[in-house]
C-alpha cells in the first residue's frame, strides 16, 4: 500500500527496539473479549486507477452545469470560481496543517485568517469577525445562544423568512436548553412582520434574514429600531454573502450580531458542504463570541505576527464554561473566501453583485411578461418567488427531462405556498439560458 512506508525489515528492527516478537503483542493490553475476531467486511482495495473510474461513474450521475441549468439557490449558490482561487487553496502547506496552535510555524494560516476576519468585518460593516463556523445555520444558532449569554434572557424570536433549514438547526440546538424560540410571520409584501413584537417581552434577541429566504430585501434599519425598542439584540442573518457588494451592509443598519453563509465566496456547492459560517459582532461583545479568533501581536524582535487569541473563551481552556464547544471549524473555507474577496476586490464586487441583481431582475420581468405571477412586490436580490399557473408540476418534470431545474418547490417549507417556486439566477446564467426557461414555461 503506497501510504504505508514500512518494509518487513523496518517492522522487524522496530519490534526489536520495542521488545516484542510481533505486532499482535503490542495489543496485549486489550482484553481478549474486546478483540474483534473477524476481518472487516469491506470491499477489497481499489487501485488508484480503479478508484478514478468508480468515482467518475458516481460523479457522472449528478445534474450539474454546464449540462444542466439549475435555477436553484435557497442557501447554495452557483458562482464562478477563478482558477487562481482553487489553485492557491490547493497549496498543501495550507491544506495539510492543523489548527495553528504553534504560531511560529503557522503564520501563513494565521495571517490569512486575520485578513479573512478583516475582509468579513468590512463586508458586513461590523467591528470583529470570528475565524469561521461550520455553516450559516450553525452560525445563527451560535449567535442566538450568544445573545442569550449576553442578555441573560431566555427567549429569542426568529423571522419565518429565515431559511427554513436554518430554523430547524436552531430548534435542534435550543431543544435541550429550555430557552424559547418564537417565529415571526411574514407580510404580503414578502417581508417579516414585526408587529407581533409588541406582545413579546423579555426577548434576548430577534433575528431577521436579508435578503430573506424569498430573496426580498428587508428594511433592516426599521427592524433594528423596533427590536432595540424591545431591549433585545438585533441579529441579522444572510445566505447570499455576495449581496453586500450591492446592498447596505447590516452593520450600517445597527445590527449587533451578523451571521450567515459564505459559500458564495469561492466555495463550490459540494451538495451543501463544506460551507462557511460567518459571524461578526460589535467589539463590546468580543469576549462573548463563540469560536476561534486570530489577533495581531509582535514577536521577541518586535516583528508583526499573528496568534490565536482570547482562548479563555474556548473549550480547551475553559472546558464546561466555554462559550462554544467548537474546535475544528471551517478554516480552509474561510481561506477560500479570503482569496476570493481579494481577487474580486472592492471595485469588482460592486460590479459582480450588480450583475447578479440585474440578471435575476431580467428573468423576473420576462417571467412576468410571460404570465407568471411574482407575488411578493418587495425588491429582491438573486432570488424571487414565482407563482406558476396550475398544473405546473408536469411542466417542471418536463423541464427536468430537458435538463432544466426550474427552481425549488416551496410547498415542503411553506405549505401555504403550493404552486410557488423559488428561482435563483447568478452571473453564471446567460440571457439565452433564461430565455429558454421563459419560453418553456410559456408553452
Amino acid at each position, binding site marked *: 500500500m503506497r*501510504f504505508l512506508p514500512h518494509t518487513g525489515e523496518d517492522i522487524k528492527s522496530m519490534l526489536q527496539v520495542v521488545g516484542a516478537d510481533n505486532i499482535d503483542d*503490542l495489543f496485549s493490553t486489550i482484553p481478549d473479549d474486546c478483540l474483534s475476531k473477524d476481518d472487516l467486511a469491506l470491499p477489497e482495495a481499489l487501485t488508484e486507477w480503479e478508484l478514478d473510474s468508480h468515482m467518475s461513474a458516481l460523479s457522472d450521475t449528478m445534474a450539474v452545469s454546464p449540462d444542466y441549468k439549475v435555477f436553484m439557490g435557497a442557501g447554495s449558490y452557483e458562482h464562478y470560481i477563478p482558477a487562481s482561487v482553487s489553485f492557491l487553496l490547493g497549496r498543501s502547506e495550507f491544506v495539510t496543517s492543523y489548527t495553528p496552535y504553534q504560531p511560529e510555524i503557522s503564520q501563513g494560516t494565521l495571517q490569512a485568517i486575520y485578513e479573512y476576519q478583516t475582509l468579513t468585518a468590512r463586508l458586513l460593516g461590523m467591528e470583529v469577525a470570528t475565524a469561521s463556523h461550520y455553516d450559516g445555520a450553525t452560525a445563527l444558532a451560535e449567535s442566538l445562544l450568544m445573545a442569550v449569554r449576553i442578555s441573560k434572557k431566555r427567549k429569542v424570536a426568529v423571522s419565518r423568512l429565515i431559511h427554513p433549514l436554518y430554523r430547524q438547526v436552531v430548534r435542534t440546538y435550543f431543544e435541550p436548553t429550555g430557552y424559547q424560540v418564537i417565529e415571526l410571520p411574514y407580510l404580503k409584501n414578502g417581508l417579516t412582520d414585526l408587529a407581533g413584537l409588541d406582545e413579546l417581552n423579555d426577548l434576548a434577541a430577534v433575528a431577521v434574514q436579508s435578503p430573506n429566504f424569498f430573496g426580498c430585501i428587508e428594511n433592516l434599519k426599521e427592524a433594528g429600531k423596533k427590536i432595540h425598542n424591545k431591549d433585545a439584540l438585533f441579529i441579522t442573518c444572510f445566505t447570499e454573502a455576495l449581496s453586500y457588494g450591492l446592498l447596505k451592509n447590516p452593520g450600517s443598519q445597527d445590527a449587533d450580531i451578523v451571521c450567515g453563509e459564505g459559500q458564495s465566496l469561492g466555495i463550490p456547492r459540494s451538495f451543501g458542504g463544506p460551507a462557511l459560517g460567518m459571524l461578526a459582532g460589535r467589539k463590546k461583545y468580543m469576549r462573548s463570541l463563540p469560536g476561534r479568533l486570530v489577533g495581531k501581536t509582535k514577536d521577541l524582535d518586535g516583528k508583526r505576527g499573528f496568534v490565536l487569541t482570547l482562548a479563555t473563551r474556548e473549550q480547551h481552556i475553559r472546558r464546561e464554561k466555554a462559550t462554544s464547544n467548537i474546535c475544528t471549524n471551517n478554516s480552509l473555507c474561510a481561506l477560500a473566501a479570503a482569496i476570493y474577496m481579494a481577487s474580486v476586490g472592492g471595485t469588482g464586487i460592486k460590479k459582480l453583485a450588480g450583475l447578479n441583481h440585474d440578471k435575476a431582475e431580467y428573468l423576473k420581468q420576462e417571467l412576468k411578461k410571460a404570465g407568471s405571477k411574482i407575488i411578493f412586490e418587495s425588491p429582491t436580490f438573486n432570488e424571487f418567488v414565482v407563482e406558476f399557473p396550475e398544473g405546473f408540476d408536469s411542466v417542471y418534470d418536463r423541464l*427536468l427531462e430537458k435538463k432544466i431545474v426550474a427552481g425549488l418547490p416551496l410547498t415542503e417549507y411553506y405549505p401555504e405556498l403550493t404552486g410557488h417556486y423559488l428561482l435563483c439566477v447568478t452571473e453564471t446564467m446567460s440571457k439565452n439560458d433564461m430565455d429558454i426557461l421563459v419560453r418553456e414555461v410559456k408553452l
Partner: protein
Amino acid sequence: MKETVGTTGLILNEPLLWEKGKKGRCGYSLPRRDVDFFSLDQELRGEGPDFPDLSEVDVVRHYTRLSQWNFGVDTGMYPLGSCTMKYSPKTNEKQAGLSGLAGAHPLLPQDLSQGTLRMMYELERYLAEITGMDAVTLQPAAGAHGELTGMLIIHAYHKNRGAQRSRILIPDTAHGTNPATATLCGYSSVQVKSNENGILSAESVADLMDEDTAGIMLTNPNTLGLFEENIREIAEIVHSKGGIVYCDGANLNAVMGIVKMGKIGVDVMHLNLHKTFSTPHGGGGPGSGPVCVKKHFEQFLPVPRIVEDKGNYAFSDNYPESIGKVQAFHGNIGVIIKAYSYIISMGPKDLKMASRLAVLNANYIKESLKDTLHLAYDRPCMHECVFSDEKQRDDHVTTFDMAKRLMDYGFHPPTVYFPLVVHGAIMVEPTETESKEDIDKYIEAFKAIADEAKENPDLLHNAPGKSKVRRLDEVSAARKPCLAG
C-alpha cells in the same frame, strides 16, 4: 526592530492584503453583461465593502508566500497527539473536485443526485462495519459537532423515556470539547479520576454512576494512548443504572479492524474523518464528525436519513423522534468523499494494517525516548505515548521550550500540556504514514535537544530561531485584542 526585505533564505516578507494593490485593479474576470441595468431603490443600495483592488498576480504571490510560512504534513512529520496527522492522499483531493460531485446543489431532485447519495449510503455502511454499530449519520461537520449530535441523541433518548437526567460522567483525561458539549445539552459534568495506570477503574465509575446520570462520555483508546481495559465492566455499570455509554472516537486510528466499539458496550460514538480517515485538517477544518449508534438510538438520528430501495437511493424525513438537523444541508460532503475514497483505496486488510503500524510507530518512539524524556505511564501504548518535562526540570527547561526548539530541527512539535493529568505533558502521535527513517530523525532531534537543555539551555529558551517569526507575545494579544486591520 526594523523590517527587512527578507528574513532567511527564500522566506520573504509579505504585507497585509490591504497594504498592497491599487484602486482599479481586479484579479477576477468579470462575466459578460448580456442584460440591461435594472434600477434598485437608492435606500437599499450601499457603498460596497472597502476591499483592496489587486491583480491576479498580486493575489497569487501573496498567498504563495503565506503558504511558505506554514508547516503541514506534506512539509514534514507532524506528530500532534490526539490529532492523527496522517498523510492525506492526493487522489482524494482529485475525487472531491470532480465536477459532478463538487458542483451539485444540495436540494437537487433525488433522481438527479444518485451518485452522491449512493456514496453517502455506502460510507455509512462502511463506518458501521468498522465501529460495530448499526446506524450512522454523516451530517455533523466536525468532531465536536459529532459530540453535540451524540449528546443531543442521548438527551432525546432520556426525554423520550420520560425521565431527563442532569449529570454526565467525564474522565479527567477527556478532551475539552467533551465537557463543553455536555454543557450545551444542559448536563453538568462530573469528573471521573483515572487510576494509577492512567485508565478508568470500574469502581470509580460505580461510585459516581446513579439514576440521575445520563451516562458516561469516554475516549477509547484514551488521551494517554491507553486502552480502557475495563470498558465492558464500566458499560455494564452504566447500563444497569439506565445510562448510556458515549465514546469519543478521536483515537479510532489505533484499533481499526481490531476492536469494534459497538461490540464492547458503546451505544453512541462519533468519528473524526479528518483524523482516522485521512482527510486533511485544512489549518483547522473543514472536518467531518459522523455519529454511529446502536439500533435502539437510530430513531433519534438527524434527518434526512438516506434510504436504499433496490439500488435507488433517497432521503427520508420520516423519523418523528429525530433530534432534527445539525447543519443546513447533509454534511461536509467534500470531506466525506475523501474519506470514502480512502476507505475503498485501503480495503479491509490495509485499514487494519494502518492501525497496527500506527501502534508500532508509537511504541517505537516510546521505547526510544523513554531514557531521554520522562514517560508518564510505562506500559504498552496504543497509537500515541505521553512523556513529560520532569527530567528537564533541573535544567530549567520546560515542555514549551523543547517544543519550540523542535521547530528549529524542522519538525512540528507534539501536542503539549495535554492531557491535563500529566504535568508538562508531551503527547506524541506519529501515525502509520511516518517511515522508520523519519521517526529516527525525530528521535535524534529530541535527544539532541535534551543534550542542549543540559549544556546550553538558552538555545531552548530562545527557540525557535529559524522560523518566520520568533516567540510571539500572546499575553498582550489577549489583553489588547486587535482582531481586524
